[in-house]
C-alpha cells in the first residue's frame, strides 16, 4: 500500500520533532517535546495496525518515560538546567558524516527490501493461535511462543528497580506540598485506575491490552497516591489508603516487585518436568498465562512506581 499525504506528514513530523527535541538549546522544551514525540509515536502505531503498541507507547513510552524525564528535570542541580550546546570538532563532524552515510545506506537497503520481503511469522502465529491458550496474537507471542523473552524482560525490569531503589524505598517526600483538591481527585481516580488495569489485563487475552498496559496503569495509580499524600514522621505516607502504604515498603514491596518474575520462573521450571522450558501442557495454557499475567501486572506496576520514585524521590537513589 502506498503512503498517503497524511503518512508523509506524520512520518516527516516525527523526524522533524525528533531533530528539534534532540538539538534544541532549551532543555525543558526538549523534555516536553519528547512527551509529544511519544504520543505521536502512539498514533503511528495505530496507523501501522499495532494498537497493542499504541497503548503501551502512550502509557509507558510517553507516559512513564515522560514523567521520569520531567521528574529528573526538577532534581537537576542548578547548573545542570542549561543545555550545553553541541560538541564540535573533527570527531563530531566525522561521526555526523558517517551516520549520514549509514542512514543513506540503510534506506537504500530498505528500498531494495521492499519489493521482495518474506512473510514473517504472522501465518504461523495465526495457525498455532488455537493451541496458545489466548486469542490475541500479540499476547500469544508474548506469553507463549516467545514467553522466554518476556520472562527475561521481567528480569530486566526487576534489575532496574533493584538498582534504582538501592538503599531507598518508594519515597514519599513529594506529597508534602500537594493540594487538597488534588488529593480529592486522587482519592477517586486511583481505584478507577486499578479497576481499569484489571480490565486491561483480562482483555489482553483476546484483544489489545495485557500485563504491561495494566501494569503501567497500576503504576500511574501508585505514583498519583505517592505524589498527593505527605510523608509522616517515619517517611511513610501519613494519610491515604493504609494498604498502599504497607505494600510499598520493605519486604512487601520487594516481594511485590519480584512476584511476577518468581511466578514466571516457577512455572517455567515446573514445566520442565513434563516438557520443555515454559512448554504449557495442553489445555492449561490459558489458565497459566492468566496467572503469570496477573502476577506480572502487579510486579510491573510496582517496578514502574519504584523507577519513578528512584528518579523523583527525595532520597538519593543508590546512596548507601
Amino acid at each position, binding site marked *: 500500500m502506498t503512503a498517503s499525504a497524511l503518512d508523509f506528514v506524520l512520518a516527516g513530523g516525527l523526524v522533524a520533532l525528533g531533530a528539534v527535541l534532540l538539538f534544541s538549546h532549551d532543555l525543558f522544551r526538549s523534555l516536553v517535546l519528547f512527551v509529544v514525540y511519544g504520543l505521536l509515536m502512539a498514533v503511528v502505531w495505530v496507523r501501522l495496525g499495532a494498537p497493542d503498541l499504541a497503548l503501551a507507547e502512550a502509557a509507558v513510552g510517553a507516559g512513564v518515560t515522560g514523567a521520569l524525564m520531567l521528574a529528573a528535570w526538577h532534581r537537576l542541580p542548578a547548573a545542570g538546567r542549561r543545555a550545553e550546546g553541541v560538541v564540535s570538532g573533527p570527531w563530531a563532524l566525522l561521526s555526523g558524516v558517517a551516520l549520514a552515510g549509514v542512514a543513506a545506506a540503510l534506506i537504500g537497503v530498505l528500498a531494495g527490501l521492499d519489493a521482495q520481503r518474506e512473510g514473517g511469522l504472522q501465518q504461523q502465529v495465526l495457525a498455532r493461535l488455537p493451541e496458545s491458550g489466548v486469542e490475541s496474537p500479540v499476547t500469544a507471542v508474548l506469553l507463549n511462543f*516467545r514467553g*522466554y523473552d518476556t520472562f527475561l524482560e521481567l528480569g530486566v525490569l526487576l534489575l532496574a528497580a533493584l538498582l534504582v531503589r538501592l538503599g531507598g524505598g518508594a519515597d514519599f517526600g513529594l506529597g508534602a506540598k500537594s493540594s487538597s483538591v488534588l488529593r480529592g481527585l486522587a482519592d477517586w481516580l486511583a481505584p478507577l485506575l486499578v479497576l481499569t488495569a484489571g480490565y486491561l489485563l483480562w482483555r489482553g487475552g483476546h484483544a489489545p491490552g495485557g500485563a504491561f498496559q495494566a501494569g503501567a496503569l497500576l503504576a500511574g495509580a501508585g505514583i498519583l497516591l505517592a505524589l498527593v499524600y505527605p510523608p509522616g514522621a517515619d517517611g511513610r505516607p501519613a494519610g491515604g489508603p493504609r494498604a498502599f502504604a504497607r505494600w510499598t515498603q520493605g519486604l512487601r514491596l520487594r516481594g511485590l516487585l519480584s512476584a511476577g*518474575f518468581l511466578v514466571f520462573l516457577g512455572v517455567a521450571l515446573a514445566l520442565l518436568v513434563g516438557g520443555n522450558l515454559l*512448554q504449557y501442557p495442553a489445555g492449561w495454557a490459558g489458565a497459566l498465562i492468566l496467572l503469570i499475567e496477573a502476577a506480572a501486572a502487579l510486579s510491573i506496576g510496582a517496578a514502574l512506581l519504584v523507577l519513578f520514585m528512584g528518579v523523583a524521590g527525595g532520597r538519593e537513589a543508590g546512596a548507601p
Partner: protein
Amino acid sequence: MNPGDWLAHWWPGLLLGPALLGGALAFVWPRLGFALGQGVALLNALAAVLLVWRVAVGGPLAHAAGGWPAPLGIGLRLDGLAVLMVLAAALVAWAGALNARSYFRAHGQAPEGFWPLWLFLMAALNGLFISADLFNLYVMLELTGLAAVGLVVLGGGTDSLAAALRYLLVGLGGSLCYLLGVGLMYGAYGTVDLPLLASQASGPALGAALALMTAGLFFKAGIFPFHFWLPPAHGGAPAPVSAMLSALVVEAAFYLLMRLWLELAPLSLAELALPVSGVLGSAAVVWGAVNALRAERLKLMIAYSTVSQLGYLFLALPLMPLAGAAIWSGAALLVLSHALAKGALFLGAGTVLNVVGHDRIRGLNGLAQRLPLTVAVFVLAAVSLIGLPPSGGFLAKWLLLNGAIAQGQWWAVAVLLVGSVLAGAYMFRVLGRCFTYGHTGGREPGVALAAQWPAFGLAAAAVALGLAGSWVGALALAGSPFEGDALLGVAP
C-alpha cells in the same frame, strides 16, 4: 532414564534456574544474599562441569523454549564452544563469590544489591551463551549490561559512578545498533533464529544487518577505538566485579561476533568485512599494552591488559574462515585462558588493595614477602597472558600463529609476537616490584587464605589448561562450523 538423558532435558533449567531463583530471592531477602550467592555459585560450577562432561561425551544439545521449534519459538543450544564459555563463567563466578566474602569483609559486608546482581549476571551470561535466537540475545545483552553497570556502581565514589554511567550509555548505544540489526534481519528474512538464518539469509540486507549488529558488539566488547569506557569501568569496580567483567562480559560480545561471522555470514562477506576486525584488533593489542605499561595503578593496568588481550581475539577473527579449526580452537582456548587468568589477576589485585590499602604499582615493593600466594597468582596469570608455555595462553597463541603462518598472514604474526613481548613487559614491571626487599616484615598476618586461594585456583587452571589443550580444542569444535577438521594442518 539414564543420567545423560536427564541432563539432555534439564540443562536449560540447570543453567538458568538456580541463578535466577537465587538472584530473585536474594533481592527479596537481602540477609540470605550471602548464603544464596555462595550456594548458587557452587551449584552453577557443578552444573557447568556436568554439562561439559555431557557435551564432551554425547555431543551438542538443543532445546526449544516453550516447546515451539524455531522460527516460532526460541531455540537454545549448547555446543562445545558454548559449554566452554559456560564453564569459564561458572569458574570465575565461583571464585569471585568465594573471594567476595573476604573482599567485602574489609568493608563490613557486601553492599546491598551485590548478591542479586552477581547472580543475575551469572544467569544472564549463561543465557547469552546458550541462546540461538538473535532477539533473545538482545534481551540477554541488556540483562548482562544492566547487571554489570549495577555492579560497577557498587565501587562507590564519583569515579565509579561516572565510569558506570559511561558504560551504561555506551552499552545502550551498542544495544540499539544490535537491535536495529535484528529488526532488519527479521524484516528481510522473517526469522531471528540463527541456524535458520544461516541457511536462508543472503543479500544486501544480511550485510547491513550484520554490520549494525557488529558495530553494536564492537562497542560492547570495548575493542579499540571503542574501548574508552572499559579501563575506568573495569578499573573502578570492586575487584570481584572487575574479574567478572573483564573475564567474561566483554568476551561474551566477542563470542557473539564469532557466532555471527562464522555461522551466519557467507564466506564471501566474511572475507570482505573481517579484515576491519583484524586491523582494530592489531591496534588494540598494541594500544592496550602500551597503556598498560604506562598505567600507575595495578587495576587500571589489568584493565588495559584486557583491551590488549581482546585485540588478539579480534585479530583472530579474519583468520578463521580459512584456517578454521586451528583458529577456532585457538580463539576458544584464548577466551578461556584469558578469562581464568584475568579473573585471577583482578581477584589478586583486590587482595592487594585490601591489604596494602592502595594499588599503586610503585608502592608494591616487597609484595612477594607480604603476600606470597597473591604474587604467585600474578606470576601464573602472567605466564598465561604472555603466552609462555605450558599455559593455555601459550597453546592458544601457538594455534593462532600456526593458522596465521599457514595462511601467510605475516602482519598477524608480527602483532602476536609484539603483543606477547609487550605483555611480558607490563606484567614483569609489576612482578619486578614484588620481588624487591621493600618490605621487611614477614607474611602479612590476618589475610584470610580464603581470599587468595580462589584466585590461585583460577590462575593455576589457566596454566594447567595448556595440558588439557587437546581435549579443550576438540571440545570447542563440537557443533562448530569446523567440526571434523584437523586441528593442526601442514601447509601444502
